[in-house]
């Protein structure tokens, strides 16, 4: 009889821990010269994704990766009853070295966490997390995140102004650091891998008035990881 009671008590506890969770999330841009566009975080069911490696990007992911626009991803997630936190960083951008901390409450079946944000300057590079199972035990958990290429735009590395942020328009929209060049001829016009893959990094050059790239190779390159994520489960 006693054993039965204990088993019942344990299963009640498991159900409780798999239900709504209160999280505090800290997200740090680890790069030395790249900004991240407004972050989008989502808790969702185990079979949902913002993106998956080696698959074609959704329209929403393309809009995020090429121009930092998370509206489509957010509406897709809302239709799936996911929990969404959009743009928690003050001012929208997350600067090199900057940490943004925010609280998030997840619904009972939303057991997995995803995030994404565009890397500036890049054509369609983004920092991402794909469906991490959220720990249920109270504690603090750290993760390192890598840079991905959405596979939707050739990495020409040409500064195109805000128009360059629209899906399907060549070029990158801006460098918030203010160190991008101009008049580059372009690194490439091809995107050979049109699925989502680990970003090969930007090439850049050291000619601010021409050359192949408007990205500065001394300033805007990165190595993985590009972000640190700390999840505090309460």
């Amino acid at each position, binding site marked *: 009889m006693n054993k039965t009671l204990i088993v019942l008590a344990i299963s009640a506890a498991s159900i409780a821990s798999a239900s709504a969770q209160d999280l505090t999330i800290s997200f740090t841009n680890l790069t030395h010269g790249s900004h991240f566009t407004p972050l989008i975080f989502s808790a969702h069911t185990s079979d949902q994704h913002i993106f998956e490696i080696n698959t074609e990007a959704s329209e929403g992911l393309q809009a995020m990766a090429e121009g930092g626009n998370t509206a489509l991803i957010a509406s897709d997630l809302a239709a799936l009853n996911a929990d969404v936190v959009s743009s928690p960083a003050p001012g929208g951008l997350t600067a090199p070295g900057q*940490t943004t901390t925010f609280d998030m409450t997840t619904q009972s079946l939303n057991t997995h966490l995803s995030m994404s944000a565009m890397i500036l300057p890049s054509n369609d590079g983004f920092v991402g997390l794909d469906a991490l199972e959220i720990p249920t035990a109270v504690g603090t958990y750290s993760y390192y995140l890598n840079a991905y290429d959405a596979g939707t735009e050739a990495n020409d590395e040409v500064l195109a102004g805000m128009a360059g942020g629209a899906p399907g328009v060549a070029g990158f929209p801006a460098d918030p650091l203010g160190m991008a060049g101009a008049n580059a001829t372009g690194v490439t016009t091809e995107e050979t891998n049109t699925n989502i893959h680990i970003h090969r990094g930007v090439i850049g050059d050291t000619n601010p008035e021409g050359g192949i790239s408007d990205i500065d190779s001394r300033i805007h390159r990165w*190595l993985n990881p590009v972000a640190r994520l700390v999840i505090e489960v309460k």
Partner: protein
Amino acid sequence: MTNIIQTLTLAGVLALSISACSDNANPTPETHAFSVRIINMTNSQPLSPPVAMLHNDSFKFWAVGESASLALEQMAEGGDGSALLALQSTNPQYQAAGAVPPGQEVEFSIETTDVSQLYLSIAGMLVNTNDAFSGLNSIELADMVAGQTRIYNTHAYDAGTEFNSELSGTLPGPADGGEGFNAARDDVTSVVTLHSGVVSADDNFANSTLTGADKFDNPTLRIIVTAL
């Protein structure tokens, strides 16, 4: 009910043994000792003589997103970690006798009897760079048991104190033999971050003093800590 009685009995035995111990006039504090191996995994970046320290949970050599201390700048630009150690000069600490070449390692032991000082930090410069360094930042060791080993693969950091110009005369390592520490701060990002790697002349940066051989990627060091 039987379990409760057993528990009470155990507690009684424990109480007895504690009172027996208290008869010792001067108990010797327990020593917490660790063996540490620092392995340089880069292709051709010598690691400046690495420094290590045991400290409490409120001390750090650096923090991502924060401005480097002068001591960190001196280590990251010039390879001299003495000032970092001087920040907590009475703490258990270690400074290697020389640089750790690529593919080689250094081993040392470090110990304390103060249980509040079971946090380990390590730092050394990648000397063929402007201000890149690697190491461990305040790793907690208190939960390690004797014989246990932990392996850390470390990232390369940028101190954010010197622009990554790669120009002749700015790199203290053997690739250049240029200037080390300079108090001027001229980086585009003035806080500690991860490092973006070096470009080099072989990668279309004609004025760089570095070659493709000087490039590195993460991880840069492997640090193996064993509780003794």
